[in-house]
Structure formats: C-alpha cells, structure tokens
C-alpha cells in the first residue's frame, strides 16, 4: 500500500471522527445524555455501511471503510461508557451498550454485506 493512500485514508478518518462528534452532540440534544444513543447510532450505521462497501466496492474498502468509517465509528468510547453505566448502577443499560450493540452491529454488518454483494 502506498503512503499517499494511507494519508488519504487517515484524513478521511479525521473527517469521520468530526462527523461522529457532530452526530453525538445532535443526538444528545434530542435524546439526552443518560444513555449514549449517539455513539450507538454511529457504530450501528457505520457497521452497516462498512458491510455495504466491502460487499459492493471492495476496492474502496481501505479508504472509505478502514479510513472514513473506521474514524467515524469508535470502540474505546463504548467500552468506557459501558463501564460508567455499570458503576452508576445502570446494569441493564450497561449490558445493552456492550452486548446489545455487538449483536446489532454484527447483524447489521451481515445485512450490509448481503446488500452490498447484491448491488
């Protein structure tokens, strides 16, 4: 892989991270900050979109997938939010944020792959 391609993908990852932040702020305004709905929305839409890209445009998977969608979605914040929810006594919300998101993310990724392959 060329260095230029890596730099382009990294720049798009930055763009994705900026979009994630804006979505998170917007969702928190509507849904409140008790549960991390914003990051949930980002991670689920990103998992679906990556499935579609890998299925339909494997050649663009590095730049758009690993780059843009890799920066758009995040794992570290979800782990920290899950620990914080558990410590706040919000046990059901904590499990939903960890395992519910994982299950939904994998199912949406599979749906995205199937749709992408059919395109």
């Amino acid at each position, binding site marked *: 892989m060329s260095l230029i391609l890596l730099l382009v993908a*990294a720049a798009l990852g930055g763009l994705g991270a900026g979009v994630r932040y804006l979505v998170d702020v917007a969702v928190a305004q509507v849904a409140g900050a008790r549960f991390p709905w914003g990051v949930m929305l980002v991670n689920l839409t990103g998992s679906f979109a990556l499935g579609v890209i890998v299925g339909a445009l494997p050649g663009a998977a590095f730049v758009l997938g690993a780059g843009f969608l890799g920066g758009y979605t995040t794992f570290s914040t979800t782990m920290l939010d899950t620990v914080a929810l558990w410590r706040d006594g919000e046990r059901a919300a904590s499990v939903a944020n960890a395992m519910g998101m994982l299950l939904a993310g994998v199912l949406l990724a*599979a749906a995205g792959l199937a749709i992408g392959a059919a395109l």
Partner: protein
Amino acid sequence: MSARTLLRRAMLVSAGGALGTGARLALGVIVPESAGIPLAVLIANVAGALLLGILASRLPGSSDARLFLGTGVLGGFTTYSALAVGATGLWMQTPALAAGYAVGSVVLGLAAAALGLRLGRRRVA
C-alpha cells in the same frame, strides 16, 4: 453551544481522528491478519480502551485536550465497524472463532477500560 464553538470542537476532533486513524492503519500494515482474525484491529481496540480509561480519569469530559486526544485520537484509533464486519466475515468460515473474536474483543475492551480508569487515578510519585 454556539455554532462557532461547535465547529472549532469538531475540527479539533477531526485533527485528532486523522492521527488516530493513521496510527491504526499503520498498525494494520505492521501486524497482519492471523488465522482470519484482524489482529491489528483487536490490538488497537483494546489498547485504545485502556488509554481512554487513563485519559478519562485525568481530564474532564469537555476540555479541548480530552476532545482532541479522547474523542479524536483514540476515537479514530479504535473502530467498531471493522470489528462488526470482521466478525461477520469470520463467521462464514469458523463461527466459533467469530463469536470468540467478537465477545473476546468486548470483554478485553471492558477490562482494559476499567484498568485504565484505575491506573489513571493512581498518583504518580
């Protein structure tokens, strides 16, 4: 929050996110897939969760430094989409390994975040 503040913060997150994404992609070049498991993604995710735990116990939620390093750099370094798609791809070959990779990532990530929070609180002499 004013539009100007929001835009400034989004740009701060983007700058960090580009660095984090670049580091994750570089790690992917160095560490290849192993037995179908995207090892680089696993390493980035668990290490990123540990570092975010440390950061979160040291820096308040909305400071510029936290936005740049946490939401930006570590948010971009770690990824959820590659975990979900990686696990799905692996499922078609070896379902047990796929389940182990997906659940293992989350279990290790949670342990790493909790450890990071604890390490961050410890006073350094």
